[in-house]
């Protein structure tokens, strides 16, 4: 007796949006993402910013932290002016005579580096904590979630300030502070998603098939927790960058030898009222554009990855 239904050889209804024989979730996600023009533009801006930051040493006309290249007599020149050595300062110079364009490029680099690194580390820690809490349940979950609640109830700036005061200055110390402040968001997000995924029947099927707990958590549940995690990570990256800028502005962030955008803004602040606005303003605008781009990308990611909005 034949078990094959001749009818079942009929192709499944091809999802009309893609002619690819295998439409991976990635391809579907990408085509959904690029539906929004604003989000596409934001992504383009973000990619541009990242390229600028990564390639800063090659692109910047001047290394603003090499004292040999900086001429203090060129200080506080407005954008577009030509300096002593015949060199055009497109965005002007700051109080010490550094080319603002170069300083911004290098500053972007540090800002993004610190923001993204702390975000990634916090994601890993938060995801592990969230998954453990969801899968273990019971007392373990209670303890971990109370820790998360505690962390979230304390103001981020306060924690960061205290930590930096204890640990001292330095890029790594700032990253530690940012990670400490951020991991709890991820833990909470992942725990929520993991709990709802665990109730789904494919997890029950995995248990029926005799899979070990580790395999279920990492191969079944975790991949399905990634969408909300990615959304939170994107938005949190923006927060991290902002927080770092705030700390630097207050003078407790990164050291002067590795200034971020926040520090540039801080440096130029004293000149704001004397008409030399560009020293603070332009780095501020760059920071704003970066954060906005990240947030717009994050918004679109959230809409696209939200299963309830699936058409």
């Amino acid at each position, binding site marked *: 007796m034949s078990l094959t239904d001749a009818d*079942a050889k009929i192709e*499944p209804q091809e999802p009309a949006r893609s002619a690819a024989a295998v439409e991976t979730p990635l391809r*579907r996600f990408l085509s959904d993402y690029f539906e929004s023009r604003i989000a596409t533009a934001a992504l383009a801006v973000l990619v541009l910013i990242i390229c600028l930051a990564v390639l800063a040493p090659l692109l910047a006309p001047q290394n603003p932290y090499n004292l040999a290249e900086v001429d203090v007599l060129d200080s506080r020149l407005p954008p577009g002016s030509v300096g002593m050595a015949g060199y055009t300062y497109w965005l002007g110079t700051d109080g010490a005579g550094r080319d603002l364009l170069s300083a911004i490029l290098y500053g972007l680099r540090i800002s993004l580096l610190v923001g993204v690194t702390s975000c990634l580390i916090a994601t890993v820690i938060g995801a592990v904590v969230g998954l453990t809490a969801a899968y273990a349940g019971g007392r373990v979950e209670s303890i971990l979630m109370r820790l998360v609640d505690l962390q979230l109830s304390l103001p981020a700036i306060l924690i960061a300030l205290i930590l930096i005061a204890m640990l001292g200055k330095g890029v790594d110390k700032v990253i530690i502070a940012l990670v400490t402040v951020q991991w709890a968001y991820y833990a909470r997000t992942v725990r929520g998603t993991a709990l709802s995924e665990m109730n789904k029947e494919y997890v029950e*099927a995995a*248990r029926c098939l005799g*899979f070990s707990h580790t395999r279920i958590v990492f*191969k079944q549940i975790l991949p399905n927790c990634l969408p909300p995690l990615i959304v939170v990570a994107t938005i949190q990256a923006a927060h991290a960058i902002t927080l770092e800028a705030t700390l630097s502005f207050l003078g407790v962030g990164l050291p002067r030898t590795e200034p971020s955008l926040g520090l540039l803004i801080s440096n130029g602040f004293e000149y704001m009222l004397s008409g030399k606005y560009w020293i603070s303003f332009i780095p501020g605008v760059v920071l704003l554009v970066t954060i906005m781009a990240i947030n717009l990308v994050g918004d679109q990611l959230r809409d696209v990855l939200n299963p309830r909005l699936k058409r």
Partner: protein
Amino acid sequence: MTSASATPIIEARGLSKRFIKQADLAERLLERLGATQAPSVVHAVDNVSLAIASGEVVGLVGESGCGKSTLGRMIAGLLQPSEGQVLFKGRDRATLAGADAKAARLAVQMIFQDPYASLNPRSRVETIIGEAPLVHNLVSRAKLGEFVGEMLKRVGLDAGFKGRYPHQFSGGQRSRIGIARALAVSPEFLVCDEAIAALDVSIQAQIINLFMDLRQAFDLTYLFISHDLGVVRHISDRIVIMYLGRIVEMSPTAALFEAPNHPYTRALLAEAPRISYEKRQFQPIKGEIPSPLDPPRGCHFHPRCPLAMARCAEEAPALKAISPGRLSACHLNDN
């Protein structure tokens, strides 16, 4: 299909499952202060005993709150019973260890209701079907592709589908993938928990035929859980009717439909919609299904039973044989 030995392949003895809502911090404080509140306990399954012979198809029917899904999951090993044992080929499953335990686990597989939630959306079909046999060394990595293709063919799907993702398939095809996943570990017993309820009528017919074909080809035993009496009648050798956690009647299929004994069974049969050639006047039984949090005393059905007596409110009827192979839990049979 007759079984070689008399040992039933799966036997549930006195199975009960209670879900107790854990009091949260506020309630525990209140308890300390003296305001005691009875903990909310859901008696999902109440002292159920059921033996299923090899090769048999047992249909388990009931409405919401009757505990059929909970019973199915206890038999499949996904839920730990609060009381009672599940015996696999005569041996208590809880006492098995090592290779025996694994064999017992793989021998009983489950087919789920929701074709959309029962497949991991991030895995390809090849992984969904092939991961378990690979992990349990039932097939080598080299032979995996061929094996998965063979499984797909068995359930009536094209072997070339193995590289695709669940979202590219229709509901009926996803059901078939779920069945292939269960078959891949060579089970002997399948628990089908409302496996076709979410499908269209014409697709249901295809899947029912598939179940029947697979039973013949692989000598499978089924526990077919459903609320649809028509389907259960078609496929089952024996039918078990549950109401609010207890078995109320158990009988071979034909006998049940010819002469239902328990008043609930009679009401269910009378009210089950079937294709009728006339416009019908519905004469339903009154009342809501009680909540399993607070089941009626005595016989659970007595508040809605048209034939209830005083005794029914006091004493829960025992499941007794009314004729060879037929059991029913009703005081009316005592006369």
